[in-house]
């Protein structure tokens, strides 16, 4: 994974001013996860967010007496984590690498503080997160129809 390419090909920085891009580059770090390794646990403090460069991440929920349920998988180019942006800043789901995964990790509080003073960055961050959230909401609604199930929805 080339960190610079990963960031610059992301909608997060598309059309963003050079200073704000430089800020994101300055606070981003490369994180690597082995297959099966947790990025974060459900209900833990949401202190950062991730931009997947390589590999695949699964959002999962623990259920009694069985393996965790995979809620959604997230691949290269996509953001992992929304809860860092809104109070109470705790993860709703656990995230686990399903394959060897490399990602850029951004510190949530630092990005939020910068957004408070940088309207252009704030617009890009909130718009990118909103677009991703809408896409996942749309996807979830269609899956709720259980299209492949026994009965016609």
């Amino acid at each position: 994974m080339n960190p610079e390419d990963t960031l610059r090909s992301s909608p997060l920085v598309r059309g963003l001013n050079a200073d704000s891009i430089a800020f994101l580059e300055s606070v981003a770090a490369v994180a690597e996860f082995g297959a099966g390794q947790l990025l974060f646990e459900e209900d833990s403090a949401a202190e950062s967010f991730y931009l997947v460069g390589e590999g695949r991440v699964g959002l999962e929920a623990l259920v009694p007496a069985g393996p965790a349920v995979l809620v959604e998988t997230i691949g290269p180019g996509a953001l992992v984590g929304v809860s860092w942006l809104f109070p109470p800043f705790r993860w709703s789901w656990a995230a686990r690498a399903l394959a060897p995964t490399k990602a850029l990790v951004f510190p949530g509080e630092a990005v939020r503080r910068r957004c408070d003073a940088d309207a252009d960055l704030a617009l890009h961050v909130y718009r990118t997160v909103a677009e991703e959230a809408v896409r996942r909401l749309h996807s979830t609604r269609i899956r709720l129809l259980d299209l492949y199930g026994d009965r016609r929805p």
Partner: protein
Amino acid sequence: MTQTIAPEQSWAPMLPHPYRVVGTVVETQDTVTLLFESLSDHQLRFRPGQFTMLYVYGVGEVPISIAGNPHLGGQLVHTVRAVGAVTRAICGLRPGDVVGIRGPFGTGWPIDQVAGRDLLIVAGGIGLAPLRPAVIEALTQRESIRQLSLLYGARTPNDLLYKDDLIGWKASPSIDFEVTVDRAHSDWWGDVGLVTNLLPRVRFQPDRTTAFVCGPEVMMRVVARALRTAGVHEDRVFVSLERNMKCGIGMCGHCQYGSDLLCRTGPVAPYSAVADRLKVDEL
């Protein structure tokens, strides 16, 4: 409306030909693939995407897409999901049982129009069955196709069809194959999410792409819209519509869909030709 019987259907098209079950594969808890051989001189040649009328004597007749290799003469493959009285009876057939088969009927996937283009095949659930012959045919013609991709969505990992095929396609350098399910546990190796989530994973040039899409109609609409957003022209997106086919030759009108009789002008149609009708309630 005037319909003429095509020359290839000038033989008694309402007469079922006896076929014997020679093999079965239990695909999922409610879906079975059956292999048939003809007991007469009727040798069924078909185009990918066509269907037959399959008659269980004393129970009833249903339209079933052909799921086998179009190049293997003398072998007819159907994959059937048990959802009603006739399909439950079909799924209960055993080797040696005899059924009546008419056909093939309907249009096929326009695989003769994909030379020099990217071919993107998107299947949802049992919709992989009518697309399987197209995948086989596309792999046969692989050198004439630029990029060949297959995206497959299913309910759970246990609902995936043709598991041996899936393993082969995943390993093949000739086709980009991605699979996703709606629900899974953490031991699942594939993706979880909507099949359109897989579009960014495969290579295709939108203005040079033809797409074949088959699955529940909601899924086909969603995929067609996602492809339109990606830049694929609706004229180049083909869908397969399921309606109440009965005679198979455009005579009885059971499958009338607006101005079309789908057993003759379908089941495969350009999305641009049917998109408006897909929005009509109860059509």
